[in-house]
């Protein structure tokens, strides 16, 4: 919820989901409006690397920011920006802003 509040305070419209599977369902419904997906590599039901795969399978333009406390998470062809936990709020906002601006309609 803290991430949601930070992003909303910065002016973004935010959709949240309780796990990876619900996140993909929300993405499918809102696929024309979503520009950036923020995820965690450790999530219930479906881990973040799989969650990163689905939105870009549906819309390759979508940007994915992932975070983890482990070093195993990292940038890949799917995850375009990686945040190592713990990170500062300002780092999250900067990452989302970079990816939001990199989105090509």
């Amino acid at each position, binding site marked *: 919820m803290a991430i949601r509040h930070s992003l909303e305070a910065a002016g973004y419209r935010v959709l949240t989901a309780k796990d990876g599977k619900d996140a993909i*369902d929300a993405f499918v*419904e809102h696929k*024309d409006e979503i520009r950036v997906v923020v995820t965690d590599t450790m999530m219930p039901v479906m881990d973040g690397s799989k969650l*990163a*795969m689905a939105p870009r399978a*549906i819309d*390759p333009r979508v940007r994915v920011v992932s975070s983890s406390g482990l070093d195993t998470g990292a940038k890949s*062809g799917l995850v375009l920006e990686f945040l190592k936990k713990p990170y500062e709020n300002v780092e999250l906002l900067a990452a989302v802003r970079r990816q939001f601006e990199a989105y090509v309609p």
Partner: protein
Amino acid sequence: MCVRYTLHKTDAALNAISAALGAPLEAPDWAGPKFNVTLTSTMPVVARQAGATAVRPMRWGFVPFGGRGPHPKLIANARAETVASLPAFKKAAASRRCLVPANGFYEWATEGSTKLPYLFTLAGEEPFALAGIWDPPAGDLPETYCVLTTEPNDLVARVHNRMPVILTDGAMRRWIGDAPLAPEELKLLTAPFDAARMATRRVSRYMSNSRNEGPQCLAPPDEPRPEPELDFG
């Protein structure tokens, strides 16, 4: 984009393809009705290879050669306008065009802040095929496919800016194959399907949840609950 479809009458869909191709095709035992087909589902797909036409289990989520690796890049759809020229699809568009049996597809309309799912079918619920391309297995990856999309017709344009390429009868026969199509033929086959031959209706939000499966996916939407009658007498 086309990211959910239904194949709940597998026999009827395969019979229609079989009749169009003049080739006997039977629904395999593993291909039961699926009312809510999602990305990564393994589905029956009709493909031709070395002259033999067969129903094969393929996974939805095309993985082009350059997208293989520990985190494969899946692709749900390919745009008909660029499928023959983009490196990711070029080879498959030339030599691995397949038919994806279907009875309908879903799309969501925005009403206020709510997303309401609609089912699109052919009039009379005639079965059809979605135009697809497929990729052979590689390493741990099985055969995979994606669905072509095109400009929407007037019916689909009410809710979305793309629609899947729909094929019936002779168009199925012209699409499937392992030899390149002439650009004009590709354009003709991937044109938006005639809206007058299609139907649509709202369905329950039950199908929006990818965990849900079964006939309830096609059920009409739940009516809003009536306002309670208050008695202050």
